[in-house]
């Protein structure tokens, strides 16, 4: 995976969490994972297609999600599946949206699909053939994980850039 593709996700996640939680955040772990993905809590999976293809997973425990929701609401939020799902979904949307903005400004074109939320025991099958970068971000609410498995499609970009010749 090329670092120039990963960096916007790291920057966006850092900016979104710091702004949303009104506190500094820190990347405490960053590692390549080649095994099937194992969810740590509630995960939002976002698929990307175009010049860049792959998927990004935002993953946090329900307890962390409730703390994040309370922080965003400015008061204690009652724990429920709906609150957890909404929180993870909105955080994922913000991180991916900001990352896409950064990548698009650098000339990469692609489509982002709405997040799929996985919170039951069976959800989110692993993708054994996909090498992923897993980033652990420490926040005052607890750890948030970002799992990124994307690659650059040079061929797709060349096809898009090709201009038909006129006689």
């Amino acid at each position, binding site marked *: 995976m090329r670092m120039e593709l990963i960096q916007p996700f790291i920057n966006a996640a850092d900016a*979104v969490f710091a*702004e*949303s939680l009104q506190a500094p955040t820190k990347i405490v772990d960053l590692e390549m994972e080649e095994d099937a993905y194992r969810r740590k809590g509630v995960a939002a999976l976002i698929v990307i297609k175009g010049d860049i293809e792959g998927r990004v997973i935002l993953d946090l425990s329900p307890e962390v999600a409730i703390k994040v*929701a309370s922080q*965003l*609401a*400015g008061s204690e939020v009652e724990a429920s599946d709906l*609150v957890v799902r*909404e*929180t993870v*979904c*909105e955080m994922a*949307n*913000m*991180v*991916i*949206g*900001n990352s*896409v*903005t950064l990548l*698009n*400004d650098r000339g990469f074109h692609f489509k*982002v699909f*709405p997040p799929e939320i996985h919170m039951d025991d069976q959800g989110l099958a692993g993708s054994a053939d996909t090498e992923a970068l897993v980033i652990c971000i420490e926040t005052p609410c607890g750890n948030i994980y970002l799992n990124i498995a994307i690659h650059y499609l040079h061929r797709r970009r060349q096809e898009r850039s090709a201009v038909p010749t006129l006689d």
Partner: protein
Amino acid sequence: MKQFAALVRKDNRPVRYLVVDDSVFARKNLIKMIELFGGEVAGEAGDGLTAIAEFNRVNPDIVLMDITMPQMEGIEAVERIVRQHASARIVMVSSVGYQENILAALQKGAKHFVQKPVKPEVLYEILRYVLSDDPNATGAPVALAGEQRS
């Protein structure tokens, strides 16, 4: 928490907002800010189609509109609302802030764009700017009740 001077209409009534976002969470967050600015939530919608119906029903002073939504996306909803109500004031609120998106929204009639996560002070300034063409304000900038404190 930072406090803001209330944004009010020229007739001293609270500014009425329509909040459009498919995420209940995002809507709550925006509503919290609207209350902080002394505004009133006239309606809510979770997609573009409902937003058009709600606009016709509540006739808000300002619409805060997400872009990526089910059924009908925000940019198409802007186009349809502005076609029927040329003076509609719509501010796009989205996490996807690349140039093509912003330009498309502005070309369809949106007045401004703010990227998520929304900073209250940024939204406040944008609303002040957008409300400055309030017909009820007869050309004057939006009337502010009280001084801004920090």
